[in-house]
Each structure stands twice: as C-alpha cells, then as structure tokens.
C-alpha cells in the first residue's frame, strides 16, 4: 500500500519572539500524510500539536515566525505561496475544524450564511445556489430540519450541532485535506461518539485525508491509521496505530499509555511520568524528554537524537534505538524493565 503523499512537512519551525526570549512552539517537525489517510497527532498541552496545524495553514499570528525546509501540499511548498495563493487554498483544498464549537462560529451571522461564504469564495456560486448547497451540507452532517437550522444563529444551537456546522463548513468545498484540531475535546462523550462517527462516515464519502489533532489516545485508536507523537515541539515517534498500542517505541509514548486510566482494566497504581513538560523558552540541551526519562543515559542529556527510521517502518527519536546506545554506560545502572524499549521489531 503505497499511496501518494498529499502533505509532506519537513523541518517545520514556529518560533515566537517576545523580548529576549524565543519560545520554540514547533521546533523542526517532519511527517507526511497520504491520500485518504487519517494521521493522528497526539501529545499533551504545550507540545506544539495545534501550532503545527496552524503553521501548515499559515494562520499563526504576527509574532510567530514560521520557517523550515517546506510544507509540501500536492508537491507545492506552502511556505513559498503568497498570501493571496494561500487564501485560495484555505477552506478550499485544506480546511480546518477547531476545538471550541462555541466560539469558532461568528455569533452575528446565520449558520447558513457562514457555510455559504466558503462556497461563494471558492466555487463562485451565487447567493441562492450557495444557500441551497449549504442546506444540503447541513443535512449531510445529520442536522434535522436543515432549512430551518440554516437560518439560525450559532447561539441557538447546541455544542454538538455547532460542531456539525463546522464540519459542514469545512467539507463544503470538498477539500483534499481536513485538519481537525481537538474536534471533540469540548464535547460530552456521547456527543463525541456522534461526531467521531460522522467524521469517519464523511471521510469515506469525501475521500479526504485527515489530520486528527488530539490529546486523547482513545480518539486516536478509534479514528487514525498512523500516529505522530509530539513532545515539546518535536516529533518523537511516527508509527502505525496498531504499533502504537501494541509496541510503543519511545519511552514517552510508553509512559503516556501506562499513565492513562482505562475503563476496562484495574490497576492499583497508575504509572506516572516524573516531572513536568519543559518550558518552551528554556529547553534542555539534549533530548527534551531526558529529564523525565526513566532510561536516560549521559548521551541523552548531551545530544539531541534524530528521528530514526526502523525496519518496521516506524520512526522514533530516541538513542535507545541507535548504535550509540550500547556504548553508553547506563546512568541508573538499573534499567526499569517495564519502561525499557523492547528492541528488534
């Protein structure tokens, strides 16, 4: 299965300068999304996952500086595009769904008007055509009595409904890539189930590629094909979803999985990753996870590991998977077996 890559991100950096400090929100991110694929980007708050998506869309506000080797969408580098060209791509070929359905819609326009707007900008439809299509889109995302709803303003709709409207708006122009930034985080579980179900259904219908940004590993398991795990502005692991759960590679991923309380298992004590995420304006010298890592050796505090491809096709940013590892004496002397990455995939 080697389908074409629709998006290729290479060395993407987004830095914020405030005074003397530089906040490295996204700091050299590489990944790619294939046609029709759903790629999950997971990580805890502050890891840079949302900023990555905004950087791809070039929607970072003025203080943020985007740089890098390239963000190739259908082989064109988005970083080279003019603002005008970007506008014709946004909402048309790449669209986005945001986390807060309550604030992401403009309160003073009807939802019909807001969906119509994309269609009129990108597909040149006139007012009534666009409206008709908007109502169809509302129906498609499962909103009952869509003609009536189209005439309502966002505050008359529930959170779940609004997120459906956002989805309708995002899919209106049949984009080839949909970026969903924590689309269900603000919703209750039963509503989340509805929305995830809807997204899956529509993806197969529209055949768009999806980037699913989330902090919830459950959502990843349910929706994604491949997963990128981010930590402190960097990709630490890029792997297939089954691999992620069966054989997590990076010590951070392993810890994350063990720290998550499960609804189908009882453990007496949860595994806890020590310490806290480093401050993005004061990052540690070596591997960014080293201060919290149970297996870190001296080299981890000295050098930043590369994102290394393994035979299995997965990639991981950890010295434990490189030749340098065995040369090093372990700092702890005693490796926590549970946390140690199992080699030989």
């Amino acid at each position, binding site marked *: 299965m080697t389908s074409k890559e629709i998006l290729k991100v290479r060395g993407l950096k987004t830095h914020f300068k405030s005074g003397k400090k530089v906040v490295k929100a996204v700091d050299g991110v590489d990944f790619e999304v294939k046609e029709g694929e759903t790629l999950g980007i997971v990580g805890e708050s502050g890891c840079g996952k949302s900023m990555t998506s905004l950087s791809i869309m070039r929607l970072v506000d003025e203080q943020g500086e985007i740089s890098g080797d390239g963000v190739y969408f259908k082989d064109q580098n988005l970083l080279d595009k003019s603002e005008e060209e970007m506008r014709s791509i*946004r909402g048309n070929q790449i*669209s986005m769904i*945001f986390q807060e359905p309550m604030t992401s819609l*403009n309160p003073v326009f009807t939802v019909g008007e807001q969906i119509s707007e994309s269609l009129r*900008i990108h597909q040149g439809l006139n007012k009534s055509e666009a409206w008709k299509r908007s109502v169809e889109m509302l129906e498609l995302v499962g909103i009952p009595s869509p003609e009536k709803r189209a005439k309502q303003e966002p505050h008359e709709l529930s959170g779940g409904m609004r997120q459906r409207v956002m989805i309708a708006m995002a899919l209106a122009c049949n984009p080839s890539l949909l970026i969903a930034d924590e689309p269900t985080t603000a919703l209750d579980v039963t509503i989340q189930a509805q929305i995830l179900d809807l997204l899956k259904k529509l993806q197969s219908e529209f055949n768009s590629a999806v980037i699913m940004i989330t902090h919830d590993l459950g959502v990843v398991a349910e929706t994604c094909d491949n997963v990128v795990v981010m930590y402190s502005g960097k990709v630490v692991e890029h792997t297939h979803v089954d691999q992620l759960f069966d054989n997590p590679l990076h010590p951070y991923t392993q810890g994350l999985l063990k720290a998550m309380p499960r609804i189908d298992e009882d453990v007496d004590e949860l595994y806890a990753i020590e310490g806290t995420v480093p401050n993005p304006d004061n990052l540690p010298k070596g591997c960014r996870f080293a201060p919290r890592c149970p297996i870190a050796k001296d080299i981890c505090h000295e050098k930043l590991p590369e994102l290394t491809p393994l035979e299995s096709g997965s990639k991981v940013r950890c010295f434990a998977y490189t030749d340098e590892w065995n040369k090093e004496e372990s700092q702890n002397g005693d490796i926590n077996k549970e946390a140690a990455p199992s080699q030989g995939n």
Partner: protein
Amino acid sequence: MFIFIVRRVLQTIPVLIGVSLVVFLIMQMVPGDPAVLLAGESATEEQVNQLRSQLGLDQPLYIQYFDYIKNVIQGDLGTSIRSNRPVLDEILVRLPVTIELAFWSIVVTVVLGLLAGVISATKQRSLTDVSIMVAALIGVSLPNFWLGLMLILYFSVQFQIFPVSGWGTFAHIVLPALTLGTSGAAIVARMTRSSMLEVIRQDYIRTAKAKGVKQRYIVYKHALKNALVPVITVVGLQFGALLGGTVLTESVFAINGLGRMIVDAIRMRDLPLVQGSILVVSALFVLVNLIVDISYKFVDKKVDLN
C-alpha cells in the same frame, strides 16, 4: 423581544421617579426660605406667610413632593421667578436649539469616532494608527470650553471663516458642534479600536481566515459588526455627556439654548427654572438611553441585559 421592550420601558419609570426625587430634594437643601426668596425683599412677613401656604410650603415634605409630581405630570413645572412665565414655556423655547446642537455634535462623535477607530484598528501600529490615537488622547483631554475658545480665536477672529457666536445658519453650528463632539469622537474612536482588536483575536475570526476569506471582508464583515456592539453603549453614554456639555458650549458660543439658560438660572437663583430644566434634560437622556438599549438588543440578540 416585545417583552424586553415593555420591561425596559417599565424600568425607566423608577428611574424617572428617582430623578424627580433627587431634583426635588436638592432644591430642598437650598439654604434660606424659598418663600422669602419668592416674595422678594420688600415683602412683609404676612405676605411671606400667605405665599408659603399658597405654595404648600407649610405642608410636610412628602406631600410637597406628591404635589410637585402631580403638577409635573400635568405639565406644570412652576413659574420662573425672573420672567414670571411658566417654566415649561421657557424650556420649550430653548429646547429646539439645544437639540439641534446635540444632534450635530452626536453626528460628529459617531462619524469621526467610528471612522478614526476603524482606520486605526486596521492599520495597527502604523504611523496612521499612532497619530489617530495621539489625537484621540488629546481629544478626550481637552477642556471643551477651552477648545471652543481656541476655535473661536483661530477660525472666527483670525481667519473669520465662521461666526463668533449666535445661532441660525449652518455656519453657526459648525464650531459648537465640533467643540461638543470632539471628546465623544475621541472616546468612540478609542473604543472602536480596542473593540475591533479584541474581536480580531476571537476564534471565529480564525475560522474565517481558515475559510480563505479576504482580509478586507474579515475586517468589515466579520469583525466590525461584532465590534460595534460595545460601541453602541458608549455612544449612548456619550450622548449624556454631550447633553451636559451643552451647558459649557452654549456659554462659550453665547447660544441661547437650554444649557445656557440653566447656568443663568442658577446665577439668578431662579430655582423653579433650574429644577424644571434639569428634570427635562434628564428625562430626555433617560429616553435616549431607552432607545439605545433597545437598538442594542436588535444588533446583539444574545445580549443579556438582566
């Protein structure tokens, strides 16, 4: 919506009662005996007493108040001491002048203020923005009586473009309206700018950008309508400041409006006239606020005023 309007109208009643009570009580605080004042210095004690009972001044305070209210409702605001004419007549002669002045001033406030505010917000941190904001800062800080005098000094005395004082033609209106409208315009400009900048930070603006909407449309379609909501409130409040400001502006430009009449009346200690005109101007302001609130509700349907 209907319920809101009715409720809002009903809410103005206690305010109006409160205003009348305050005006009434303030006048009670005046040192000295109003009967003596009214009867004049040459009056005998008997004449004063007669006047006192004639005016009900020997009654308890609350009865005096009720009598006062009863008269007010019937349109009787008392008689001016100086001119001996009904206060209401005196007010009605002067009111149109003040309303005309207030109208043109609010035009200056809204047009100038909105324009400057929007330009400033869209060109944030540019030279234009900084200049407008400095101008606005000076605008809110200038004493308008001084501004009026300076305008007279330059535009009337030195360049003789506009008449020094008086009322009647449009040329007469320009300087007073500018004087009175400037501080309001400055406040509206600052408010519009900050409100726009606030709105531009909202999530739904990001959504619009993600849809590929042009910058211009984002500003004028998506942002402005939302940003106007708080501006309307400010304009409403400015109208009050402006009505109060007529007192000074009319004095500076020697315009025979209500404001100048109030000042003269205070100076002459013509208390019924002071009482009546303050009551009328306040009632007018309450009415304007009512209209502003209702229009506010139309613009922003989810606004929760209670």
